[in-house]
């Protein structure tokens, strides 16, 4: 990773940190629980994790992707960076349905608990989500944030940071 100098880069990095923290918590939980033992969704810890999955993984990631695709990638494209942003947008397209499905399953479990079938699905999707999103964040931290620092001028950087803050 690089030393992050841009304002919008720092905000995106903060989002990444929050997402990674939750994803790792989810991964630990899923691995510990195994796909064969549905947990008690009313358990306080499990309920808190499900709530985080529903809000951070689904809502927050969708918002983060939306900002990048709607504002940041066009600004980078204007500065001449197309290949990387189209690749990252493509990855968003793969992650988004997994995040949404996972969020849907988490919300359903918060209401009615897990069945064996829904837990198996949640377990498999959760691990896929962890791997895809962390791999995606690795690429953004390495490529995207350094491209922002190199290609985006300070005024555009400030405007983008403002838009990102407003989207919260």
């Amino acid at each position, binding site marked *: 990773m690089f030393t992050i100098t841009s304002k919008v880069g720092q905000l995106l990095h903060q989002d990444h940190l929050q997402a990674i923290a939750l994803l790792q918590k989810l991964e630990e939980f899923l691995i510990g629980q195994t796909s064969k033992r549905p947990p008690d969704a009313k358990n306080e810890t499990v309920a808190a994790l499900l709530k985080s999955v529903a809000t951070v993984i689904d809502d927050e990631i969708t918002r983060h992707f939306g900002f990048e695709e709607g504002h940041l990638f066009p600004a980078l494209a204007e500065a001449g960076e197309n*290949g990387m942003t189209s690749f990252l947008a*493509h990855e968003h397209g793969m992650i988004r349905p997994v995040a949404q499905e996972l969020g849907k399953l988490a919300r359903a479990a918060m209401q009615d608990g897990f069945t064996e079938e829904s837990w198996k699905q949640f377990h498999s999707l959760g691990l896929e989500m962890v791997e895809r999103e962390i791999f995606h964040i690795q690429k953004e931290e390495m490529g995207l944030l350094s491209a922002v620092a190199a290609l985006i001028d300070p005024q555009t950087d400030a405007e983008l940071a403002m838009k990102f803050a407003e989207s919260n």
Partner: protein
Amino acid sequence: MMIVDPSQNAKGRLLPPDIPFRFFATALFFHILAWVVLFLQSKDAGGLSWPMLSALHLITLGVLAMTAAGASFQLLPVATKRGVRAEGLCRLVYWLLVAGVALFTGSLVHELPGLAALGGGLAALALFGMAILLIDNLMGVEDMPVATGHAWAAALSLLTVEVMGGILALNLAFGFLENRGNLVLAHGILALFGFMGMLAQGFSTILLPMFALAPAPSEKLARIALFCNALGLLCAVVGALLEVRPLLVAGGLLGILGMAVLGWSLLAVYKKRLRKRTGFFFLPIWTGLAMGPLAILCGLAALFDLFANAGVLFLWVSVAGWLLTFLMGVLQRIMPFLASMHSVTAMGRTPLLSQLMAEGWAKAHFALHLTAVISVGAGLVVESPLAVRLGAAAGLLGALAMSAYGLELFKRVRRFKRDGI
């Protein structure tokens, strides 16, 4: 969903997959061949006979330089944010290097000096092309001074290694050097610690934090490491050429200091990593990095004649212990990384890394490789052909396991694409 065509990325910084993977696959093949030659020629334990030189160059040129070329053509543009401008030259470098390594090492085994000189010349030409591509990519890059500083030192070392290697190759055929020992030592130091060592250390400042999702290492410490490494290299090479032992010693001590500072700063950021579950590949990477200073200690022991065959041990630990171990760890990660980015199905999906990585083979490779490094090293010191042969057998099995890892990756990518999930 928008489907990304890999050829579109080729216009950016991601090369077509055939470029890095042809280097990696060939490196895995030469890796096997190196251990086969060492196994068959282990009667020469303790000396640097022509067949032993063949095994050595199968590793240095066939595995290390081959992997470094494929990895740097793909990774340096990502780091510098500048695309490779001559993909054709990358392919030419490959063919020249393959032909050069095959001819050079084959001729050494059969003790054919004329053909060995020709093979050495072809390999030198290939590495010259590589140096041009590296320098072209580095020109005008101002950010990331530590990684690019190491890469500059590697590229300049490579050019000098070219000249020295070319003279040594010609000397094989024409025998015009009265005393080639100084040049051989300088060539070895520059090739291992200048070209390969600087690339390995420079890339580790980018790759390790990326793989572990950790912050960048302290720029101040990394600059100190770069300064020590570069000055140490200069001292050691001049010391070797002029036969000035204090300069060689100073070079060795500075090299140890540089590696220790860089290793410490990498370890410090690794401890702060965000990704707690890092893969198995980190074990060979750390083991390799730890063997760098150990190799230099063996070199210093050789300078003071502390034990028999310390010079051969220095060479062995540098090549097989430090660089080969480190690079195999890096390969275990970047091959699936790149394969995943190039494996888009008709439905627009890419595979998960865990779907591509056959960690069992990677673990088998590491255990066998470490056994080989220790056993061959001990055999060289005590001049035991049996220990060298047993070590080479373990190394060969390890190389086969590493190739199985690569083959399994290839099969999994094909299966993933075929099933079109």
